[in-house]
């Protein structure tokens, strides 16, 4: 009857609703795929990395604090030496030094681009920064090997490999990242801050240093932590200039090693399932956890410093 037909037509999903539902399902499938991939990666690295402690019975504290790394040979105590402290110190040392050296240059370049020469500063520096970001890291490593290492050798003596060479290479690599984010942070400071400061009679430098930079500090910090996260995970460029000696670095110009450099140079020479391989996966697990930590720090800074 007419009523039933009308009722059926009202209760059935309209075409528009079905199309929307399909679109929602497709987007959900995409995001489910991404989440699945990330979870799978975490699970894989964690299961292989933790196998060192469960399967091969390596003590976690020994792993983090002992200083000799030779998992393929049995050491003087009859067990293989799996001490990751030299690599952890190397990674952190190179990352922090590169961030400390890069920050003043980045802030200076960003200030020049935004406050001092707004018309042509950005026009010249922006393409330069984009170019620097686009150069592959193996090119940086090769230039470091051919130019930075002999220069350090001539000035300081020694072989030229070490944390200092790694710092130089990483400084150039993270400079564009930190500069871009600092520029964004300074741009985000509302212009009425500057106007109010000028109305109070402040000079340009006073406005810049006491008002603009202070207000942009959360964004600048975010940029620095971003740069540090990139430096921490850099493998190829660092491996070519740091010397890969698995011992505690006694100064900046003696060969050292980082988590990433030991991983890339060792992973091809090990068999899956053996202790050497599991030990390398434990290093990878440390890297993954550190990048998670960097992520959390960035979000925490962002939340705290959000302009209310």
């Amino acid at each position, binding site marked *: 009857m007419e009523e039933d037909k009308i009722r059926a037509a009202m209760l059935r999903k309209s075409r528009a609703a079905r199309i929307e539902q399909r679109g929602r399902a497709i987007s959900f499938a995409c995001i489910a795929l991404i989440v699945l991939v990330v979870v799978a990666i975490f699970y894989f690295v964690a299961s292989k990395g933790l196998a060192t402690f469960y399967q091969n019975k390596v003590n976690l504290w020994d792993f983090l604090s002992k200083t000799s790394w030779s998992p*393929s040979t049995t050491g003087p105590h009859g067990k293989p030496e799996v001490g990751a402290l030299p690599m952890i110190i190397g990674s952190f040392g190179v990352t922090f030094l590169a961030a400390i050296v890069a920050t003043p240059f980045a802030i200076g370049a960003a200030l020049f681009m935004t406050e001092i020469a707004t018309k042509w500063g950005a026009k010249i520096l922006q393409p330069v920064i984009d170019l620097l970001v686009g150069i592959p890291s193996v090119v940086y490593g090769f230039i470091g090997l051919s130019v930075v290492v002999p220069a350090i050798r001539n000035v300081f003596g020694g*072989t030229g490999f070490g944390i200092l060479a790694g710092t130089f290479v990483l400084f150039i690599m993270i400079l564009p990242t930190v500069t871009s984010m600092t520029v964004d942070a300074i741009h985000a400071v509302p212009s009425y801050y500057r106007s109010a400061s000028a109305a109070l009679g402040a000079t340009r430098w006073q406005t810049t240093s006491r008002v603009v930079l202070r207000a942009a500090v959360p964004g600048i910090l975010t940029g620095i932590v971003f740069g540090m996260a990139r430096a921490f995970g850099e493998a190829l460029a660092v491996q*070519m200039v740091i*010397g890969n000696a698995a011992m505690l670095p006694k100064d900046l110009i003696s060969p050292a090693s980082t988590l990433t450099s030991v991983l890339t*140079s060792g992973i*091809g*020479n090990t068999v899956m399932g053996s202790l050497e391989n599991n030990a390398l996966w434990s290093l990878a697990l440390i890297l993954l956890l550190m990048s998670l930590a960097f992520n959390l720090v960035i979000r925490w800074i962002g939340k705290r410093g959000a302009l209310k």
Partner: protein
Amino acid sequence: MNRAQGSGTRATFERWVMGDVPTMTAQEQDSTGMVRQIVASTPGAISYMAFSYVNKDVKTVKVDGVAPTEANVHSNRWHIWAYEHMYTRGAAKGLTKRFIDYVMSDQVQQTLVKQMGYIPINDMQIVRDVNGRVTRQ
């Protein structure tokens, strides 16, 4: 300068030169090409690598008065050498066996193998087994 820990070159060096003495922790590089370049450009650097990679950028040294030449390897006066292996799962059969025989024949050993800088196995005057015992062929 060392090679990376799982490297075959390093294993050969440690077996025939170091013996029981553990190697000192030093710089490690993964590839022979990088090692050669670093040794060539760093004064005072020393490392070890296969005959096939030696070129005019680096100098070779004598060990125990014996020079690293092919003739010295043939007679085992130069001890630091190792066989290259081909691995099969189980005994080689059919096409696999024919390929292995082809590689071991003089046709390949005296031309391609020599061209790549390696030593033909048929030129060796001695045989060394896995435990290090040497017998005259």
